[in-house]
């Protein structure tokens, strides 16, 4: 036990004290913050730059005030199109629209030509189309016998409200909590994916280094191979916790600073956060911070946090002991060992690609079975956790995971003890399989 502790200590301290570790730990959140800041800045910049649009409307069916927004500044012109289509950019306009008169009020389609020197984004085009159709609709209403008031009364907005969660305040809280839950699912699933690859391969490299250095023979004349492997896995595990913890604190700090300096529109802050960020951003642009907080509060944190910690350690242990076994079987040639890593890569990649289908139906059979399989569950179960999976499923998955951790660590230990003393031989899976049953 004492020796195990010494090994953990060494594995931890030699890594944490490295300059490269300190730099990566401090700079990664800063880089992340920088990306967020730049993309947020660019996004807000492009929104702030108003496009000037001139609309040729000889039949006078449009009204400037209906059209102009913070993004687009519309001017109506009554000049014929052939007098302005070559000069509009000289007059300071970015875009020229040619709206022909509406002859048949019953027609539901209207073609508007546009002229532009620069390429317009799809989003901008759609926004302009929406503006135009709204303005033209207004014109058609004014020409018909319907008045606006009657029309407004015909509107019917339906809100789906989950009856189980009806104790929550606000109409949007349910939609919001689903958004927050999805974002959290992605975050946890992706975090597991990263942890497995970053720290798992750290374990593997370290095993290979000891083998190539030949220190391993000295080591195992003092300690049991299993102690050495376990110490390494645990030491690197503590490194992972340290690094993630510092990242969390720094990222939180950066977000706070960021939130204070930038506009309150949360969609800007999420620019660099990928899919999860987009969901948050969408949520953010539709509702305010209060709804977001309600959504966050609505999650079952008492289940999520402890379970995630269990799956975090289980997943880390299962995969990093596999990485250790593979590292021990490899020679000094990384390329040659590539195929040995396939049994690790494949389940992780399958699991991460199942996250999206599972999110679509978090309590469907794919989700249930996937989150029971111990090589997938460390990624898939955390992804399900925010969607209130039945408690028995979580517990069963944890039991299977823990049993598998014990079994896999044992298997890895068997492979490791033989592998570290094998030199100059290319090993096959068959050979590794035999190592399991080799006597000490």
């Amino acid at each position, binding site marked *: 036990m004492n020796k195990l502790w*010494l090994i953990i200590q060494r594995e931890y301290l030699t890594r944490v004290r490295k300059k490269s570790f300190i730099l990566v730990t401090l700079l990664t959140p800063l880089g992340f913050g920088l990306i967020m800041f730049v993309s947020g800045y660019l996004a807000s910049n492009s929104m702030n730059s108003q496009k000037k649009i001139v609309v040729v409307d000889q039949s006078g069916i449009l009204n400037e005030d209906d059209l102009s927004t913070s993004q687009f500044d519309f001017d109506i012109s009554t000049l014929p199109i052939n007098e302005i289509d070559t000069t509009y950019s000289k007059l300071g306009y970015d875009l020229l629209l040619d709206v022909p008169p509406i002859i048949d009020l019953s027609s539901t389609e209207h073609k508007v030509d546009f002229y532009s020197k620069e390429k317009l984004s799809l989003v901008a085009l759609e926004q302009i189309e929406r503006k135009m159709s709204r303005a033209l609709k207004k014109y058609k209403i004014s020409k018909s016998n319907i008045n606006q008031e009657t029309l407004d009364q015909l509107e019917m907005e339906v809100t789906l409200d989950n009856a189980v969660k009806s104790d929550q305040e606000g109409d949007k809280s349910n939609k919001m909590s689903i958004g927050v839950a999805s974002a959290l699912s992605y975050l946890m699933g992706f975090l597991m994916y990263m942890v497995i690859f970053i720290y798992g391969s750290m374990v593997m490299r370290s095993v290979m280094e000891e083998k190539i250095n030949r220190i391993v023979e*000295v080591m195992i*004349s*003092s300690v049991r191979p299993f102690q050495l492997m376990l110490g390494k896995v645990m030491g690197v595990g503590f490194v992972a916790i340290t690094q993630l913890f510092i990242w969390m604190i720094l990222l939180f700090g950066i977000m706070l600073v960021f939130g204070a300096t930038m506009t309150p529109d949360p969609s800007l802050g999420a620019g660099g956060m990928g899919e999860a960020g987009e969901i948050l951003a969408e949520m953010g642009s539709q509702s305010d911070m209060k709804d977001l907080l309600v959504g966050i509060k609505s999650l079952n944190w008492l289940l999520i946090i402890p379970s995630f910690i269990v799956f975090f350690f289980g997943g880390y242990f299962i995969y990093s002991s596999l990485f250790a076994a593979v590292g021990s079987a490899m020679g000094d040639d990384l390329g040659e060992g590539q195929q040995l890593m396939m049994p690790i890569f494949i389940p992780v990649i399958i699991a991460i690609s199942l996250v999206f289908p599972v999110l679509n139906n978090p309590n469907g059979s794919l989700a249930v079975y996937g989150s029971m399989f111990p090589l997938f569950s460390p990624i898939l179960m955390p992804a399900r956790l925010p969607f209130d999976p039945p408690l028995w499923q979580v517990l069963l998955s944890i039991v299977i995971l823990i049993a598998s951790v014990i079994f896999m660590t044992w298997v890895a230990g068997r492979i490791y003890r033989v592998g570290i003393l094998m030199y100059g031989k290319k090993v096959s899976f068959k050979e590794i399989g035999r190592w399991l049953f080799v006597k000490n």
Partner: protein
Amino acid sequence: MSILSLRNVVKNYHNHTAVDNVSFDVPKGSVFGLLGPNGAGKTSLIRIITTITMADSGQVLLDGEPINFNHPSQIGYMPEERGLYKKMKVGEQLLYLAQLKGMPYKEAKQKLHSWLDKFDIISWWDKRVEELSKGMQQKIQFIATVVHEPKLLILDEPFSGLDPINTNLIKDEIDQLNQNGTSIIFSTHRMEQVEEVCENIILINNGRKILEGNVSQIKIDHKENLFKVEFDNSLLRINGLANFQILESQNDSITVKLNDGMRPNDLLGLLIGNGAEINSFNEILPSINDIFISRVGKSKE
């Protein structure tokens, strides 16, 4: 009393027998040579003694006790392939290895300081191992092997890669440890070193023991009644030499093999009777190297 006894030790690997029913004793306080060509099974034997692996059958006793996982702290092992953590500092590394052998931190630190002082390398304490030359790393490795004052020291090719000065330095240290009561197993295929330092040897080949015993006794057992005589008068005509096989003849010396039943005095008497002025008369004992080659050659047949 033996520090180490092996009784009928067998170790099989997937497709070959690495150790085939080997028994031997290492007397307490002796320097013991474990000899054999490459691939003979020396490393497999050492790994069993150092608890790295276990024998499939047979018994290994360390100081009378069946070998177990508490024993590594009483054994110091320097593998043939040396290895240290390259990025670690010398002091930290030595402390780590010493503590893994069960030494308390304070004691380890104090002992290590005195070892580094002894070798006059205390200034390396904060250097990384990768900054040191190979010979320097060997010294560190040696200190790591002996700092916990093991009862049994196992050195696998300890002088390979060492320059003559460092070889002597390490040799002196080994002598010193031996005089203080440490039993030493020397594994090597370099025979001239064996004659210099070992009292007892075992010779193994293909996993089997083919020779065992005291070095001088083995030499006597393998002597071939060869004598070298040096004398002054050159080109002597000596009658009666037909009874001897003259293997080599020079102006002032001959190497003679005595036939069975003849004694050295018979040869001397004949030479003196012929008026030879004898300068020296020596029995030529076979070197361990010769015995090794002849025995390994024989066991191949």
